[in-house]
């Protein structure tokens, strides 16, 4: 009876805390090995539908991370995310072009950074994503726009030494307001 009472108490407060720190590296490796074997078995039963859902969820989370903490690199994040999005859902990119009613050559140019996407493209992509993510998780309408403009902004700020000297020559303020006089 006492044992039962204690057991109940433990479950009642179960969420208050779990200490599952490994006591040694060996223990971690042993547990990891056993867990990996079990995971591989479970993964065999994972449907292709679930794998696609997982990849799309990963893409959404990566885009959200980029929006929160943009990093300027040589690679174009917008097109990297776009390519990942299309290739996760379609086996041929031409089918995506058909689904959003754009020319396949134009899509190819956007994906290969030879042309910037226009508003029409972004709007169709927004609606396409809304429908795709509908059964997976919440997807903000503005995500693609945010990624696109965040990247433009980061690029602009990172390359100031290239455009600023030329642009500054065109900016003169005759009556500069000085604060504090």
């Amino acid at each position, binding site marked *: 009876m006492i044992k039962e009472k204690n057991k109940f108490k433990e479950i009642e407060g179960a969420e208050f805390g*779990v200490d599952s720190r490994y006591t040694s590296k060996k223990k971690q490796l042993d*547990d990891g090995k056993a867990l990996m074997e079990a995971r591989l078995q479970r993964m065999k039963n994972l449907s292709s539908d679930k794998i696609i859902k*997982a990849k799309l969820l990963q893409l959404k989370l990566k885009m959200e991370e980029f929006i929160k903490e943009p990093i300027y690199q040589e690679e174009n994040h917008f097109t990297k995310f776009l390519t990942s999005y299309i290739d996760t859902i379609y086996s041929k990119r031409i089918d995506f072009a058909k689904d959003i009613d754009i020319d396949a050559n134009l899509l190819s140019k956007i994906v290969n950074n030879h042309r910037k996407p226009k508003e029409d493209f972004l709007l169709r992509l927004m609606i396409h994503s809304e429908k795709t993510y509908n059964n997976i998780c919440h997807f903000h309408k503005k995500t693609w726009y945010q990624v696109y403009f965040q990247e433009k902004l980061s690029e602009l700020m990172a390359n100031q030494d290239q455009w600023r000297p030329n642009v500054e020559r065109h900016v003169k303020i005759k009556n500069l307001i000085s604060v504090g006089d």
Partner: protein
Amino acid sequence: MIVISSANGKEYKVEIEAVQANDYKSITKSRYFFDWKKEQSQEVYKIKIVGSSDILGLVSVERIPEEWRIHIRLITVSKENKGSDKEYENIAGNLITFISKIAVREYGELACVSLKPKGAIAQHYIDKFGMNITGMTLSVEIEEILELINTYDYD
């Protein structure tokens, strides 16, 4: 993500963010059950209601990228949120879901979040979060993670 007041069922939006060095002054063992100062070199997150500075729960994790896994080292709710007279529901669920989202972001369909609760606590985690059991280790993988996100994440 939200927590629900046990008193009136009211929902409150929460945010989860990394614990800062100055937070450790208020993270005491008497209120958060473990010596969290020992976790300062680890990746530690706190959950709080948006607009409040009061920490409702904490989690520390270790990333094991070679196994596409994140292991939960410690997880806790604050003293007021323990047991049947807790102030808010969903604190641990939100923390586990948050860590699961990091795992999916990093490892995609191979994502796994593990922990090792002892004794009867394990059954609670299996029942409540749909965790898989392997020896003494409990884990959520992509199927369970998708469920967790549907249940806890509205963002």
